[in-house]
């Protein structure tokens, strides 16, 4: 059983997540998907805009890992593990894009949209701070997206556009093994990092900022 401070952070994160999650459903592109009106070009646009986020994702995690000081070596391992896992994802995303009629050079040369710019500027800034464990809040949001949202979006896209699993594998693959990740996350949270003054509040606030900037990224599809 987790201690009460960990429990309070978990409550804060879950509340931020649910707000974020229901707000996301009102973003024009997602609303369109939920209404059953998605077009193939919408899917291509989603992939193009998402690729930058995925590539940058492994970079900020690696930066965060390098900002962790020696006394927190255990926790650093969690960041590193994530960086490795995320690193391969963009290949799958590119293959999905090509399988629905996109050109590889278009996706590899695409510019970040203005929401992605804002999100990553923030992430890098935070990742450069010493012991940036507040980024656990960011991971909670971004992991939550993969585990709770992406699979549903993938299934809807597959159905609406009559695609094969292999053409939406990036979205579908992310929805696996939810509970393990959650337990691992809780273990890290309870591993002593909350002893850093103000870290509990900072984790929840960072989750809120990242949720808002992530939504901005989806709202600003194609806006470069």
């Amino acid at each position: 059983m987790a201690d009460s401070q960990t429990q309070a952070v978990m409550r804060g994160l879950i509340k931020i997540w649910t707000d974020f999650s229901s707000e996301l459903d009102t973003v024009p592109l997602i609303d369109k998907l939920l209404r059953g009106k998605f077009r193939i070009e919408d899917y291509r646009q989603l992939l193009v805009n998402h690729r930058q986020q995925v590539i940058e994702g492994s970079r900020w995690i690696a930066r965060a890992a390098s900002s962790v000081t020696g006394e927190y070596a255990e926790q650093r391992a969690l960041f590193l593990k994530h960086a490795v896992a995320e690193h391969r994802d963009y290949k799958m995303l590119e293959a999905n894009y090509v399988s629905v009629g996109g050109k590889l050079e278009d996706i590899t040369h695409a510019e970040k949209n203005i929401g992605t710019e804002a999100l990553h500027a923030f992430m890098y800034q935070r990742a450069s701070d010493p012991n940036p464990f507040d980024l656990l809040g960011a991971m909670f949001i971004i992991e939550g997206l993969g585990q709770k949202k992406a699979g549903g979006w993938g299934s809807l896209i597959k159905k609406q556009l009559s695609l094969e699993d292999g053409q939406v594998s990036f979205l579908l693959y992310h929805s696996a093994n939810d509970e393990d990740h959650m337990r691992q996350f809780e273990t890290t949270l309870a591993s002593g990092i909350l002893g850093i003054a103000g870290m509990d509040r900072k984790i929840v606030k960072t989750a809120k900022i990242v949720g808002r900037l992530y939504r901005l990224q989806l709202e600003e599809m194609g806006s470069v």
Partner: protein
Amino acid sequence: MNDVYINGLGAFLPGVPVTNDDMEDCLGLVFGKPSKYRSLSLKQNRIKARHYALDKQGNPLHSSSGMAAAAIHAALKNSETALQNIDYLATSATLGDGLVPGLASHVHAALGVEEIEIANFQSVCASALMAIKSAYMQLKAGEHNCAAVSGSEFASRYFRPGNYECVEAYAKTREIPFQADFLRFTLSDGAGAAVLETKPNSRQISLKIHWIDIRSHAHRFEACMVGGVAKGDEGWRYWGGFGDPLAAAKAGALILIQDFDLMKRMLPVWVSHYLDLIDKGRIVIDEIDYVCSHYSSHGLREEIIVLLTQAGAMIDERKWFTNLYTKGNTGAASIFIMLEELYREGNLKKGDKILCHVPESGRCLNGFMLLEVA
């Protein structure tokens, strides 16, 4: 400000309990054949028995207002006060008997009490908490001293075959969709009521109302459980806009429909409301002795239980009290019918805290109420 107590609870469940096998004897066979989704619906909602205010030919035996009045009389009988002391009446229901005027007027008439203030609340299940909250605030503020609150539903009359057989899209396939049929095997009839006063009972326990917290999330969700509107590709068409009610019926605008995908998306928002009340100190998990939820613990998926546990917010399932499985899901009446049985069973002791929870998928509404046995 006055303290406010629930001093009497009453329930009215029409006729005899109807078992799962006998449901279609009362509801009838749509397009002359047994429902395709009956067993699937019952497996999901786990209801074993319910009551209908219909005879076997489908004729109404009661009215929603009549059942509400009967439940209020039962609540009064269980209280230390009397009918003539009621000075405020709040009613709640998903649908009243007629379109105009509100159900509260009819309940007042059926009660046979002198002139009083009334208020009518119409939504879905959570309208019950709206009605209780209005009575609670009226008494707390000193505007009145004794209030009757009811929740009543007569859903089965809208589940008879004729309601569906006139819908053109259904007539073509001679089938009705799961999202409509599920509700036929989930909702049933009955009424419940509470009598509220500004002082506790002197000879028996009372339930002191600590607070009622209701939140609507309609700004972020489409309507999920709808009636009186046809949802088409061009948007919504309300039943009154078809030029003729028969055309509305043919278009399916008079059918009650539940969107399950949308409902699943609402669950985290309800959980979030609950966590927020813990953070605000309104709910203290270790102090809760009973949970009366209109949402069953079976509906909570494993991942939510894991989350609630991590957040220090899971309440032991042995503390959950429900009679949804034996009395049916009676919408706005359910929370009263649950509390009535919990009170009548006689296990409540002074100081016990009861957390009531009434979510409403209609357009994402959620309410909690904290009671303490006094």
